[in-house]
């Protein structure tokens, strides 16, 4: 089994990476949420970030996208430092944060338009792309409904549309498939695959291993705030499935001896 490539690869150049995370760390009170994460997301890659609950995925992505100030470390988007030149870096990124509210008293159409206008795009382009996005994500019939009345999956999709509107070079998606129905999820995967094919880069966090194995070409396993393994999916998983490798790396599987009372027969 080839060893997973070291994430802190000194040969990687800043320019070639879509996203370069260098030693990001964050402490909340006593708890160290992220403890020096290094990641290189090559340009044009479809990068999966997997880890158990509370591993620091969301915190890492928040720091990499300029939403949460890191205690240490650096994040570069196509060579632009996110914390030194935030406005330039944010132009290159489309961000779908997890667990944040939306301006949900706007209708779906208004929200996507708002995201476009906030980015300083002109009205015609915003209008055209909003229509395209709503159709592609199967939200056209609900475009005039207030986002507060959307279901969880629809809310996720409208947030994704808001992240795509300015055609970014890098997409950072935190749990994009959570509570999204299978048909919409397949549509989203197609959109993302087409986006990567045309030269865009995507980093998604997820804990659905199967999905990551099928969809992504690179993957990083993160637990307790550190990177356990990173590289192409084949490098990381070796001979087994990604899920087996993940469990092996992260540990914490309990034997199925417990809960004997739960057996009905």
């Amino acid at each position: 089994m080839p060893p997973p490539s070291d994430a802190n690869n000194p040969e990687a150049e800043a320019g070639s990476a879509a996203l370069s995370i260098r030693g990001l760390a964050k402490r909340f009170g006593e708890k160290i949420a992220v403890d020096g994460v290094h990641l290189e997301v090559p340009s044009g890659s479809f990068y999966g970030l997997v880890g158990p609950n509370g591993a620091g995925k969301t915190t890492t992505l928040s720091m990499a996208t300029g939403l949460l100030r890191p205690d240490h470390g650096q994040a570069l988007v196509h060579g632009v430092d996110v914390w030194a030149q935030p406005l330039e870096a944010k132009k290159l990124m489309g961000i779908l944060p997890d667990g944040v509210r939306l301006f949900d008293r706007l209708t779906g159409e208004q929200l996507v338009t708002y995201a476009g206008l906030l980015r300083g795009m002109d009205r015609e382009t915003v209008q055209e792309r909003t229509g395209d996005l709503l159709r592609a994500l199967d939200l056209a019939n609900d475009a005039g409904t207030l986002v507060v009345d959307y279901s969880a999956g629809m809310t996720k999709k409208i947030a994704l549309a808001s992240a795509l509107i300015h055609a970014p070079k890098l997409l950072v998606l935190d749990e994009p498939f959570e509570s999204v129905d299978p048909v919409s999820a397949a549509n989203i995967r197609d959109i993302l695959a087409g986006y990567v094919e045309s030269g865009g880069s995507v980093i998604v966090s997820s804990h659905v291993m199967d999905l990551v194995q099928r969809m992504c070409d690179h993957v990083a396993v993160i637990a307790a705030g550190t990177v356990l393994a990173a590289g192409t999916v084949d490098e990381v998983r070796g001979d087994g499935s990604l899920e087996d490798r993940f469990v092996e790396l992260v540990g914490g599987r309990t034997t199925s001896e417990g809960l004997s009372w739960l057996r009905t027969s």
Partner: protein
Amino acid sequence: MVAHLLRLKLVLLRNSFKRSTAQLIGVILGGLYGLGILGTLVVALVLLGSADVGLIRTILVIGGSATILGWIVIPIAAAGIDMTLDPARFVTFAIPMRQLLTGLVLGGLVGIPGVVTLIASLAQVLTWIRYPAAALTAFVCALVAVLLCVVASRLVTTAVSSMTGSRRFKDINGVVAFIPLLFLGPIIGGVTAGFQSSPGFAASLADVLAWTPLGALWAAPADVAQGQAGLAVLRLLIGVATLVLFLVLWSRSLAHALVTPPYNAVTKRAGGNLGWLGRFPATPAGAVAARALTYWLRDPRYSASLVVIPFIGVLLFFSGGSAGAFAFLGPITAFLLAWSISADISYDNTAFSLHLSTGVSGRDDRTGRAAALLVFSLPVTLVLTVLPLLLGGRSADLPALLGLSLGLLLTGTGLSSLVSARYTYNVPLPGESAFKTPPGTNFLMFAVQFIGWFVMLLLALPEIVLTIVYFVTGNAAFGWASLLAGLVLGAILLVVGIRSGGRWYDRRAPELLLAVSANR
């Protein structure tokens, strides 16, 4: 099971203290406030014992009726104020109805309002201590009355909980529920005036209430003290019968609510209507302004503060007629409206992350929010300044008061733009009732509010002083000077506020997001 429910309520209460020190301070302050009220009540009730029986009766019946009424009305006005033991949360547990009812009633007593009501009701035993038989009756009646309070409030909560599931109901209720509160002052004033104008008014009000479920239980001890035991029994029966009836109704509606989850009917609507987003300039600042203006109309937390303004006008008009305080409607409105965006980012909550991730500059964010406010508050302030003066035939005062109004509005908007980029505090979350203030950070909130108001008056001092000098001397030149000062100084401070607020924002936006995400 009953013990479990009680313990759950206690644990929830205790955990709410633990979340942060600021919240603990708030809970302690709230507790002290409750304790102060309770102490005053108990002392007053004990002292009342030396009064004449008729007077005791009148006061206890009216006070007691108001208490029960309060327990019934407050849950409607503030749907969702205390949902810690919301029946909907017990749907998946198979709790026998009888135990659920008992647990919920006792749970309702845990907390500051429950404890205050219980102890104050029992304190009337001390009021009647000179009449042993009446004191005994008072003890029984107090217990029944407190149960009635809790059961009535639970019945109302359960009955409206099917409606509160719908967002539209919540939104409308959040705004409409303000109205009776606004009239609370005039109502109390009217009742007080009634007491003063005819001494018999209170006694006859108490007589009527004594035969209603609201007042019967509070009147029974007085009947015993006056030697009319038969009447007392009858009144106790009215109270107990009401309690039983409410219990039956409540258990029915609870049983119904447990199998019918709230349903939010939503009609699908296709797009095509961009609203204000289609009308404002297609720039980041224009988009922020359009979004903020949409929220002023659609978010009950904002629109509730708009509803207040006409009522302030009505109150001022009735308090002093068109000649007096009514003339200052414009400046007061300007003052309140200008301050209203001082917690804008706190109101956004984590939705603010969109501004952060799209890289909106601080100046665009500040400008947009200030513009949305000024778009409607400028004309409103102008009309509300000019109209009262014209009605009162005081058009000569126009320049002075216009200067004051515009000065306060512009200065205040500038100050709010700075404050909201600097301070965040716990406000009702998006979709919550405008009444629901998360406990705890009240202290910081009030500190920021009062200091902010003080600073706002300080910054507007030139036009305030000029207006006062104008009214003292009657020299029109000072009035015009006030107008000039208001416009020029106000405009300068507005720009300064937006710019320095924008600089704060650019430096601290991630910290702002972190601060608002703590409140959820």
